[in-house]
């Protein structure tokens, strides 16, 4: 697995990961994740991908 350098203990008694370099979603992305119309199409696309994978990889 490709490693990204997020492993910087932040102190405080426990080696908590420093996630300050992990990307935060923009307001646009957060909105898209809740947009019913967009999410409906993501739902359809995800279901189709599962079915394709079932056909491709299961037997």
């Amino acid at each position, binding site marked *: 697995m490709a490693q*990204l350098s997020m*492993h910087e203990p932040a102190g405080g*008694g426990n080696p908590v990961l420093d*996630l300050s370099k992990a990307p935060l979603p923009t307001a646009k992305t957060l909105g898209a*994740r809740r947009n019913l119309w967009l999410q409906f199409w993501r739902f359809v696309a*995800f279901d189709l*991908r599962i079915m394709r994978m*079932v056909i*491709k990889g*299961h037997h």
Partner: protein
Amino acid sequence: MAEVLILGAGVSGHTAALHLRRLLGSQHKVTVVSPNSQWNWIPSNIWVGVGEMAKKDVVFPLAPVYARKKIGFHQAKAVAIRPKGDADDPRGAVDIEYTLPEKAGTTERLRYDYLINATGPKLKFEATEGMGPGGHTESVCTADHAVEANHKLREVIEVLKTGKPQTLVVGTGHGTCTCEGAAFEYVFNVDHELRQAGVRDLARVVYLTNEAALGDFGVDGMVFDQQGFQTTSELWTGSLFRERGVEAIVGTHVHRVEERTIHYETLDGTSHTLEFDFAMLIPPFGGVPLQAYDAEGNDITSELFAPSGFMKVDADYTPKPYEEWRAEDWPTTYAAPGYDNIWAVGIAFAPPHQISKPRKSPNGTVIAPSPPRTGMPSGVMGKTVAMTIADRIKHGTSAAPHTASMARMGAACVASAGTGLTKGSAAAMTMLPVVPDYQRYTTGRDERETRGELGLHGHWVKLMLHYLFLYKAKARLGWQMIPE
């Protein structure tokens, strides 16, 4: 007439039983032995554990389904396998002990022509001192555990409402745990519930995991193609942790749990303590304890089972370093070596090695996530072995076995991050194959099929799977059309 005996009625065992009944004529006998009276859609235990579903929504009684489908059912636990029978009968046999209240403790010897071991895991809470429902932490591994976890969570939320800060810890309770995905789901559902209750600002939420990096999930992590760039599941999940304000501590092995204190070690060999007010820690899994005897009564347990208690199958168990692991190491038929009528599927089969890179701390503590083999792969294995047995019965013992390697099959993992038809969210992932094949794909997996998405649609998918798989497990009209 042939008799097929299935030990276990979880995803793989129940799937195998339904398909065998469908594929075989009524002259053949299909019998299930399970210590549980109910079937449990375990992925939804997460929602029971935060009070978004009741226990009755995730379980149903097995006996009426088996009666309707003409499948024999013994509510009992298997205690011994006799693959070559005994002095009275050379057919294979299994010793069972009833758990049905009216017959509790009664034993019986069942004969079989074909045997499927789908006994699932033994939850090894005892591997970590003080862990588990009998100790100081909660679990969501069974529906009853999840009900109890929700009670404890509600108590903590009530304390938070008085203005007193609380620390909630969710994760894995041992260096060799699997099912990190379940802990991942639970931590974000807890976060969601705290927000719904308006007390999130007073709660410290910590994810404590044996994964060496976030997003490992016991499958060595994933590489996704997102808008023309490769990104890792580590960065992708790290984003969610940052967005939700959930602290993460990785590469941990919990040594012991005291009331309100977790003692753990990290991969660098240092020891730490973490104070908590609520903790849900997943236990490590072992094989369900089963003995094996030959016809003369000699103990042959080590011939059939790995030291972990999981049954050996057609995998390559030769010890080798991570760099030499290959897709071909993984089993394809799930047949027990030396026996042409015994198979082990789901969690019951012994994997050849981990999927994630195994690590040790400088103190020699093994911190290595075990391979997940639940859900979709479990169901596929159950169906595959059912088809092999049906072909052997119908066309003779030389019929070629059906195959389904975890290094070929894909899986969908939908990790809930909060409920609600318009406010819910989930991390929806697909991977193909489950076991990365670095000889075939540069990133280990098919980049077209290996994806990760966050959003409301993930919650809809998880909810759809909940209803679809309960419908399928109840063997309602057209159940066989729903893929595993």
